[in-house]
Every structure is written in C-alpha cells, then in structure tokens.
C-alpha cells in the first residue's frame, strides 16, 4: 500500500514544482505590472490578483478543466492542474514580490542611480538580490501551501498521492492507514522545507543585517 501511494509522489512534486516555477516567473510580470507607471496596467494587474485570490483553488481547477473543455480547449487533467496552479501561484507570488519591493529602501535605487548604474544593472544587481532575500521565506511558505493544495488535483483525476490513497480506501476500506501514509509523506516534505527556509533566513540575517 505504501509503495502504491508513494508512486503518486511524482505527480505531487511535478505539479508543485511546475506550478511554483511558472508562477514565480509570471509573478515577476504581475509584480512589475502592479507598480507600473501606467494606471491601466496597474488596474489590470490588481484585478488579476484579486480575482485569482478571491476564488477557491478547487473552483479554479474545475473552471480550467471542465470550463475550458466546454469552450473547446480540452486539457488533460495533468495539464489543467499545472495551468491552474501556475495562474494561482503567479498572483500570490506576484504579491509577495511586490511586498519585497516595497520593503526595499528608496535610498538603494537612488544610490545606484547616483553611481550611474543603468536600469538593467540596478534591477539585476541591486533590486533583485535584495528583494529575493526578503521574500524567500514567504516564497517557501507559499511553496509548502502549494504542495498541499496540489492534492486538489486528485478531484479531476490526476493520479497523485491523495488520489491513490482514495483508491486504496475505496478498495480496502483502510482509509485511516492510507491517509495516514499520505499525511506522513506530506509532512516529510513540508517540515524539512520549513526548517531549511528558517535556516537560510537566519544565515542571511546574520550576514547582512545590522548587528
């Protein structure tokens, strides 16, 4: 039983990592749009974020899987799951980036300008590294949340861990064992991630922040 459920881990990991990666990339665009000079762009970004965050992930999953199929875009359950979690992650991570940008002192960019650094250098060498450092704990926390949310993909038929545990339960009636195993596997991933995030955060603090 354990091995059977464990086989679903691949999909859990792929959906989590896939959604997180796309979301992390698109989120940069979302954050940039949120602080854009153009008012219209800012409003669009804001609506994007609010709409995505204001609807339960399960509903989004159904909208993408069943809804898009109805209008002729037939995605496999796996594709639908990746797409959905990417969109959701883009909104949340975009907001996390924006928070990090806001936390960056105005003086940093001014100092960089005063040294004649160009836009690209300022973004790549001054802003990004500092924002990433500020937001990395929040990003890991969000990643852990995303991993847990990926269980929702079982509802549209992605054969990941939760789906398999459900199958086992239906066939054997050993729901307690099956779901205890699933829970344990999720824990075995989320706890080390959390510990790692805290450790990285502490190390950064020690190195950079005023004593």
């Amino acid at each position, binding site marked *: 039983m354990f091995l059977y459920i464990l086989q679903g881990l691949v999909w859990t990991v792929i959906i989590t990592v896939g959604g997180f990666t796309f979301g992390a990339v698109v989120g940069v665009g979302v954050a940039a749009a949120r602080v854009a000079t153009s008012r219209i762009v800012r409003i669009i970004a804001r609506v994007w974020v609010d709409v995505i965050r204001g609807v339960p992930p399960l509903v989004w999953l159904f909208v993408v899987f069943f809804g898009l199929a109805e209008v002729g875009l037939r995605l496999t359950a796996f594709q639908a799951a990746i797409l959905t979690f990417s969109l959701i992650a883009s909104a949340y991570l975009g907001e996390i980036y924006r928070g990090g940008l806001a936390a960056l*002192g105005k*003086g*940093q960019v*001014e*100092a*960089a*300008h*005063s*040294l*004649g*650094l*160009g836009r690209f*250098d300022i973004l790549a*060498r*001054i802003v990004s*590294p*500092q924002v990433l*450092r500020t937001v990395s704990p929040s990003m890991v926390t969000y990643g852990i949340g995303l991993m847990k949310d990926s269980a929702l993909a079982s509802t549209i038929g992605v054969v990941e861990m939760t789906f398999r545990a459900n199958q086992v339960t239906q066939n054997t009636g050993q729901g307690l064992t099956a779901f205890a195993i699933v829970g344990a596997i999720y824990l075995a991933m989320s706890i080390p991630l959390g510990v790692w995030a805290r450790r990285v955060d502490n190390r950064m603090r020690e*190195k*950079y*922040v*005023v*004593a």
Partner: protein
Amino acid sequence: MESSTIPYLRAQGVTKDFGSVRVLDDVSMDINSGDVVSIIGPSGAGKSTFLRCINLLETPTEGVLEIGDFRITIGPGHKHATKKELSTLRRNVGMVFQSFNLFPHLSVLENICLAQRRVLGRDKDAARVRAFELLDRVGLSDKADAFPGRCSGGQQQRVAIARSLSLDPQVMLFDEPTSALDPEVGAEILAVMRELADDGMTMIIVTHEMAFAQEVGDRIYVMVDGRIVESGAPAQVMTNPTHERTKKFLGAVLGR
C-alpha cells in the same frame, strides 16, 4: 587672481514644483573648480532637493545645468535627459547621502567595485586596486570583506564616500552626511571631507555643521523657502548676515 574663470558647475534658474507646491524657486549657483560651498538653512527649505536636482535624481521643473562640458536645459519644450547624458552626468558627480545607502547584500569591497566595473568598465584588478586605495584613504582597508551591516554608521559613511570617489568624480555632493551620526563619529566624516577639500575636490555640502561650513567652505548659501536669500564668504555670512531670515536662522542654530 583670475577673474574670468568660467565656473565649473553652474545651475541657473532651477525651479521644482511638487504638485502645486514650489519647493525650489529660481535657484542659481556658480561654482568654480576646487570650490567648497555649503548650503545651510532651516529644514524643508529645499536644500536637499536642490542637491538632488544637480545630479538629476530629481528632475527640476525648469532650469539649466552646466557641469564641465555637460549642459542640459530642462523645462517645458525641452527633451528629457537621455540615458547617456544621465550616465555622463552621474559619473562626474558623486553623491553621499544622509543614510549612507550602502548596498547591504554586497561586501564593502564589492560596494566600491560595482560601479567602477559596470559604469567605467574597469577590469576586476584595476577596480580592486582603486578600491583599496580609497579604503586606505578613509582608513578602512581592514573592512574590505565585511558587509555593511557589520560596520558602524561612521564606517558605513566612510565606505559610501569611497564608493562615490571610485568613479573619480569632478564634483562631490554631500547631503547632510553627518546628520545620522553621533557628533563624535560625525567628526570622523568631517575629517575625511576636509582632506578631500584640501586635495582640491569641488564640493557642495548641505549641512547643519556651522563650524565646518565656516572653516572649510569657500562660500555659504543660505536657503529659505526654496530660495537663496543670502550668499557670501563664510565669515561674512556667519558673523554679519544681512538678510533678516539668515539672522533668525543663525540665531536659532548658534544660540545667540
């Protein structure tokens, strides 16, 4: 005495509006190469804004800037400064901030090397050599590998000065460089600045350090409500101010 020298830095009719508030009103200043001038005046008078207009960190609403061969006219009907113009300007004009603004994720050495490499295109070794010269000059060679967070305020400000100097600027702007520091630590910074002045650096200093302005400066400008109300040799302005507002301000800061 040469009376016909063309000023190295000339600001003419610099005006800045923030919305409907006029924070700078027709400010002009001529500064010769090697001059050290101080701008004093009450808070909110626009001193920092004026300084920031000189390297275009703040875009004036109107005005003309001439710095060496660089000349730009800003105002209605004129183009914005191009990237290249900004880069040229900022390479020649160094700036030191009240809050240091070192890059906290880079070591002291990296702070000083970054712009040398990216803006001047110096190679790694040349940048390092120059950085160590400057660190030596501000007495912090032993801090090269430290991160700013591990340096005291005074040390950070000295690194910030070294960082600005690393581009070999023609003019240095100081925006209340000692205001965030204890008087004792501030004195270290003033000592570094005095040395710079002695070496012939052209400097514009916004400051509340009256003794320093009097002793080191060639000229003092008094700014009130966005205008320069008085300027002259330090001794004259300090001991014999003509403008009512200057008298009031000096009375308040000098306690007389």
